[in-house]
């Protein structure tokens, strides 16, 4: 067994959609009057995500993120903001769990219907050193929801 990666795995990781979100992040910036605001860092690489969330009852009415990081962490943040906006927290929790399971490689492919564009990140599961990058924004969101 070779200790290195195959080019195919690399191709599966860097899908067009990921690069697109990296280069043209959605919902990047800051909210005027956030209900919750969180900053977290990945000490391994120094990447940092700031997340600001506005709530409408138990739903996320709006959110924006800021920060610097790798393509995986920023694309994951960008896709996440698109996906959770307008959703109820219980639904968000379910998505987050599903995404986590995808990252640790414990879902089968068919199960991830509600992950939408996040499925483009499924290749990350094969890169344990990068899973933390993909989860960074989600950890920030979890903290923000807990603040509410």
């Amino acid at each position, binding site marked *: 067994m*070779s*200790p*290195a*990666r*195959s*080019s195919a*795995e*690399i191709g599966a*990781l*860097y899908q067009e959609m990921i*690069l697109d979100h990296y*280069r043209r992040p959605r919902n990047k910036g800051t909210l005027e009057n956030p209900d919750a605001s969180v900053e977290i860092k990945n000490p*391994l*690489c*120094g*990447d*940092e995500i700031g997340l600001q969330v506005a709530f409408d009852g138990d739903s996320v009415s709006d959110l924006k993120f800021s920060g*610097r*990081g*790798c*393509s*995986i962490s920023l694309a994951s943040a960008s896709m996440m903001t698109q996906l959770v906006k307008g959703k109820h927290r219980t639904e968000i929790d379910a998505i987050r769990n599903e995404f986590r399971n995808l990252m640790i490689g414990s879902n089968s492919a068919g199960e991830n219907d509600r992950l939408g564009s996040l499925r483009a990140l499924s290749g990350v599961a094969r*890169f344990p*050193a*990068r899973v933390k*990058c993909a989860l960074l924004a989600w950890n920030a969101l979890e903290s923000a929801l807990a603040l509410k």
Partner: protein
Amino acid sequence: MELRADFPLLANNPGLHYLDSAATSQKPQVVLDALRDFYETANANPHRGVYSLSVRATECYHQSRARIAEFLGVRDSDCLIFTRGTTEGLNLVAWSWGMANVEAGDEIVVTGLDHHANFVPWQVLAMRKGAKFRICELTPDGRIDLDFLSGLLNERTKVVAFNHVSNALGTINPIAEIARLVREKADAILVCDGAQSAPHFPVSFDSLGVDFYAFSGHKMLGPMGIGGLIGKREMLEEMPPYQTGGDMIEFVHDERTTWNILPLKFEAGTPNAANAVGLAAAVEYLDNIGMDRVLSHERALMSAAQKRLAAIEGLHIYGPPPSERSGVLSFTLGDVHPHDIATILDGEGVCIRAGHHCAQPLMRRLDVTATARASFYVYNDESDIDALVAGILKAREIFGYVPV
């Protein structure tokens, strides 16, 4: 040099391009054989047995110390204390010398170039003692700013800690000049982090002009979990022990304990004789190559790599010019994050490091969160550079070129 065949991991993986030797080195067959041979022919607890097998283990351990001391230019081999590695050696000095000698109002100087292992222990000591923790700033190309250093030094300076070679940038620091400055302006101990010098060029502790020098075996072809701290005898003799327990004691009374002589005073517990033997085999291997040749080999690779990387649009190399750098090449590529570069290179069989290199203070000073780092050693050759360049071009291709 054609040494790849001596390294089983590399020999068994012809497509692998290992360019992370600044983190840890690969091990030649002779080192793995020496380790195994110890366990198969001499394994016993050294120092503690009357029987021949234990005597043999003791001799292996002492001969290894003598061999490694010779390699590092330490005439008095009792002044070479075996530790787990550089980190433990530096903690030993910070704790043993520091707790006994640093007082409130004293000053401790480190540099913006230091590895966490030679930064945090001093920061902690300063906080514990109420001493001032001062950081020597760097020149824009990542060298210790000697004028700045000179301005920091005064009669309250008790410790000056710095690395011989930066692991993050490869900067070779002017140790003689630093020593001269410090001796002139302060009455401080000079603590040199040698993790990146011992593996890469000839080092003679006795003429370095520093008081302490720490190194790691695993970065110089030796096994993990062994390294050393070298100190001047008069200091080591005055210092209180660090860890206490078996082997480092003379007499244990109910009320108090007296200490063994050097080096045992600082080596509590069953020594890691096997790994000392492995490290001795590693320095033997390096000496057979010749440390001058190790240096010139790395220099040659370094300038070749530098030339080819510098030609890539959007690629930025950090640190001083190659002639003042050891075999480390730290770079960024446009807006492609170093983690992405490393992952894509991994797909090409190229192992490089991406991150803060345990040098967050430096990263802040460079205003980056991370760099990509390729580092060279004896087993590398031009084909590794080819693969590195090809991988970087691949990363550009995947990401498209975006200047920053």
